[in-house]
């Protein structure tokens, strides 16, 4: 049971949601946008999240958009990971999302909820980073569309009251060779030791990671190293480890040394799989 009360709001427009956030925040209610809500419920139950009001955005049409328009794939933030997988419209995102939690939970976990989660893995962002997607952000100043590689730095850099509404992906990326590999410590359902998503464009392999450091990331430096095809693959992988953007995670799921071992092996396999050996 969640040990505190909160108010529940169901706006039907983005403008209404953003306005509600401002009003509730001014009242000191620490509002949260609510999509799948799984993290708010589970962390709220153990007092690791508090809110006096949630703003459920599932009834806002833009948040549930699943469409291709002018060769752009538009995905609403309230689409569930199961819906994304079953649609087959963005296979890399579908498969990466299918590694999160379990199937029934993914009937509730949403794209926006995963990317904006407090839990550090946020694996659904990896395909968006690899495909230079853009995101539509609603806020008090209106709607803006921003490249995700500009606004995602460890996490989506939203200001208070801003809402991630949609992602926009050029469909030319959708059919490029890709792979997504998730390595867990033991069980089939768990957080990752290492998750790697990769695509091969006409010119190079792109790589994005979760579980290695305390945040998901795409590294142009690592991509540059991995695409030096004149150097043996094993050497490139060894060199890539030296350019991680933060210390390797060291926790109960895996020591830093073990994670590094898994990272190297998984990176090696990923590159072979996507055709860059």
């Amino acid at each position: 049971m969640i040990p505190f009360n909160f108010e529940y709001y169901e706006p039907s427009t983005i403008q209404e949601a953003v306005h509600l956030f401002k009003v509730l925040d001014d009242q000191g209610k620490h509002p949260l946008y609510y999509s799948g809500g799984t993290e708010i419920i589970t962390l709220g139950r153990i007092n690791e999240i508090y809110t006096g009001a949630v703003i459920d955005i599932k009834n806002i049409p833009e948040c549930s958009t699943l469409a291709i328009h002018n060769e752009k794939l538009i995905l609403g933030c309230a689409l569930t990971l199961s819906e994304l997988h079953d649609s087959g419209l963005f296979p890399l995102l579908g498969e990466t999302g299918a590694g999160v939690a379990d199937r029934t939970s993914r009937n509730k976990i949403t794209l926006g909820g995963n990317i904006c989660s407090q839990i550090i893995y946020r694996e659904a962002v990896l395909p968006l980073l690899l495909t230079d997607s853009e995101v539509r952000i609603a806020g008090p100043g209106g709607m803006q569309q921003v490249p995700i590689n500009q606004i995602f730095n460890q996490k989506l850099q939203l200001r208070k009251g801003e809402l991630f509404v949609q992602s926009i992906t050029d469909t030319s990326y959708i059919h490029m060779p890709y792979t997504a590999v998730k390595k867990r410590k033991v069980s089939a359902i768990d957080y990752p030791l290492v998750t790697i998503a990769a695509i091969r464009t006409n010119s190079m392999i792109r790589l994005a990671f979760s579980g290695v450091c305390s945040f998901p990331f795409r590294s142009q430096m690592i991509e540059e190293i991995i695409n030096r095809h004149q150097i043996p693959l094993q050497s490139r992988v060894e060199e890539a480890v030296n350019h991680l953007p933060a210390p390797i995670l060291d926790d109960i799921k895996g020591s830093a040394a073990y994670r590094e071992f898994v990272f190297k092996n998984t990176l090696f396999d990923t590159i072979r799989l996507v055709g860059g050996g």
Partner: protein
Amino acid sequence: MRDGAHVVKIELYVNREGRSVVARPADTLLHILREELGLTGAKPGCNNGDCGACTVVMDGWPMKSCIMLAVEAAGRQVTTIEGLRDTPIQRAFAEKWAFQCGYCTPGFIMNCHALIQNRPDATDEIITDWLQSNICRCTGYKEISEAVKSVLVTGKDTL
């Protein structure tokens, strides 16, 4: 239901019957089903979305009722284990001995029922993916898998 109150009236449709409850917006669907409606088939296990013992079917899809607010279920069709009567998967669970202590059984049956309804042609890969949503402390997974396969169109040939 009224926006913004600490206690709200919610109109639920549970097992094809309209039910009106007064609840906190912070109450989970699992809590309301058990404590307000007396439907104790959905079981509290982890209360964290991990074990699947609380699974119900909502608008045809399995949902863990411990990670859903009751207010989110307003106006949607909720089916609990009490709403199933002599379905093929219930008969299969009995015939295949797909339970031991029984605590996980309602959740497993609701998940399997939704699988059969939505994906009657499910492959082994899909069956495994769906069944991994539930945990059986008695480890009766083989029998549960056999039960669901005995009902699925594609599963009958692989037993």
